[in-house]
């Protein structure tokens, strides 16, 4: 136990924590926790849901063991610190895959549960929490709760999307899906504006399991690349791109990523990809293109960056999108990366789950201090008026009003929260809960 610096994916200034790094599940103890603690996995959430500045945290990096695998029942049980990348390397040798995968494989299983993450197939299968068979939760009073849809159901629903606040997740049992190989058949279509993009989401909904769209926010109207894909069939093998992985070793100077370099990148990216191109590629290159560049967040330099991700009902999306564009223009902020996805109608399991029917847009902004924060507040109003929600996993600044508005079941949730668990995020939004 000692003080160490921890930060999250937004790469803001690292803050000291008294870290406890248990060597195994039986070694987890609360006796050294002073005021509060939170689980820290790979630190891939963007803001402060995984931080507890100047307090304790449980670093789960060594709780990364597989516990059980049932090929016939399609179930795997693993500890919460298992990293998705490693899990998939194991599963794909058995022709299995996780039912839902987020946009990076550098996340832990515990983190995926706690943020009830979604993937490109939400319209087909819902979010990560819809595919959890069961989980074990260690409460600070020493109780170990087996949670599932049949047992300790309320704790189960509070823990899925519960931002790690219901206790320490020890193990998780996931329902898997069968695949025939490690490849994805991909179709990419260049789009000329947002309307064409939305039409493509509607058109491809039924035939494609995975759909996602990249947007070039500098172009007028916003061009983009719509990609859709399915698991490939047959006995084929795709080489994974892990071999040429690059690492950004240190924070880049802040001038490196600017509007000009970003515009050039976007143009190249757009023109490089073939319209209506078909391709078969490894699951890694389809799901995790950015994982090829380890610590790409350091490209933003030491100022760090924000991501703003919201969801609004389908019918509200176009008008919200227009308003958001106006606000960005008004505050004159650059959007370095923007991704649009469609959520389907399947209800999320968790009391605080973010995914719900509608369109969800995620945008990356370099941190510009007050200007960024004011702009996000303006976004919040538009999103709230449209009956939408803002995503805590990506957030570093939302107010308790916005949180409460986005997650109306928060009072019910707080009944199952563990008193010893807290995060910087929770301290910010809990007032009046």
């Amino acid at each position, binding site marked *: 136990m000692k003080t160490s610096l921890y930060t999250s994916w937004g790469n803001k200034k690292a803050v000291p924590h008294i870290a406890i790094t248990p*060597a195994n*599940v039986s070694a987890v103890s609360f006796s050294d926790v002073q005021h509060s603690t939170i689980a820290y996995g790979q630190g891939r959430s963007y803001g402060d849901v995984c931080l507890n500045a100047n307090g304790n945290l449980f670093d789960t990096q060594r709780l990364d063991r597989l516990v059980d695998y049932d090929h016939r029942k399609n179930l795997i049980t693993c500890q919460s610190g298992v990293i998705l990348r490693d899990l998939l390397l194991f599963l794909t040798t058995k022709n299995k895959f996780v039912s839902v995968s987020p946009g990076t494989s550098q996340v832990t299983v515990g983190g995926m549960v706690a943020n009830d993450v979604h993937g490109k197939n939400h319209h087909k299968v819902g979010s990560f929490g819809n595919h959890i068979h069961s989980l074990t939760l260690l409460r600070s009073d020493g109780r170990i709760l087996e949670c599932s849809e049949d047992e300790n159901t309320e704790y189960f629903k509070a823990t899925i999307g519960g931002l790690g606040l219901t206790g320490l997740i020890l193990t998780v049992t996931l329902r898997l899906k069968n695949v025939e190989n490690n490849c994805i058949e991909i179709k990419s279509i260049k789009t000329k504006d947002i309307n064409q993009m939305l039409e493509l989401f509607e058109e491809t909904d039924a035939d494609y399991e995975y759909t996602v769209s990249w947007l070039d926010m500098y172009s007028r109207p916003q061009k983009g690349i719509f990609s859709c894909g399915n698991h490939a069939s047959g006995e084929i093998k795709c080489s994974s791109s892990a071999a040429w992985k690059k690492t950004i070793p240190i924070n880049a100077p802040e001038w490196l990523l600017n509007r000009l370099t970003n515009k050039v990148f976007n143009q190249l990216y757009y023109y490089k990809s073939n319209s209506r191109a078909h391709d078969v590629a490894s699951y890694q290159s389809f799901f995790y293109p950015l994982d090829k560049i380890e610590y790409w967040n350091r490209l933003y330099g030491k100022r760090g960056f924000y991501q703003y991700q919201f969801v609004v009902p389908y019918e509200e999306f176009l008008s919200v999108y227009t308003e958001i564009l106006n606000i960005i223009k008004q505050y004159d902020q650059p959007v370095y990366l923007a991704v649009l996805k469609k959520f389907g109608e399947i209800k999320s399991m968790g009391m605080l789950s973010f995914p719900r029917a509608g369109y969800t847009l995620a945008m990356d902004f370099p941190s510009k201090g007050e200007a960024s924060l004011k702009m996000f507040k303006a976004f919040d109003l538009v999103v709230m008026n449209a009956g939408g929600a803002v995503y805590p996993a990506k957030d570093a600044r939302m107010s308790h009003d916005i949180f409460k508005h986005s997650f109306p079941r928060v009072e019910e949730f707080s009944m199952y929260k563990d008193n010893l668990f807290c995060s910087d995020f929770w301290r910010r939004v809990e007032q009046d809960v």
Partner: protein
Amino acid sequence: MSKILILGATSAIAEQFARLYACSENEVLLVARNADSLEEISQDLNVRGYSKTSSISYDFSDVEKATNLIKQCYETLGNIDIVLIAFGTLPDQNEVSLDSNAMHKEILLNYNSIVILLNELANLFEKQKNGTIAVISSVAGDRGRQSNYVYGSAKGGISIFMQGLRNRLAGYNIQILTVKPGFVITPMTDSFEKGLLWVGPDKIARDIKKAINKKKDVLYTPWFWWWIMLIIRFIPEKIFKKMKL
């Protein structure tokens, strides 16, 4: 088909190493002191696909029982293709400088117990006439420094012992691999500030596997430590003794 013995199986490097060999052709025997971790690791390796995973809970400071332990390992596995010795502690130099009993314990574990096990293994491997004996030493054993010389001298001793063993067994088709890692993020180094030169135990494990396949004698891992230690070894003692290292 390989039969693998890991002494100090709960060490972070050893655990990652064991994962690299997990497949239905291979069998592994894990030896370590911490029974809880041992059980979790054994379960994990079993799921990952070894044809057989067994474990023995053993305290390596119990040097009198070393002969028995190796005998028991041979009985369990039949023969041994690869053995990795990975246990060890990293004493606080200031603490052991002030407490000779504590220093004795550290030397006992980090030198005596390892060479006794090596001696037992070498005699059996000599009859077996094949296989790999790999031991995790350290770059700290290449030159004594005021901040770390108790640990360093034990590791340096291990490296020299391994050299001698390699010389003795050169005609026997046996690989004697001395692994010298630099800074590794493991429970042993939890209290250290980490910088650019630090790597995860998975990187060390992958390098060890590669070195075994290439029949190497000595492995510096990551590779740049070979250059760093080359420079460090070449600094004249007159200058070196005045440096704060």
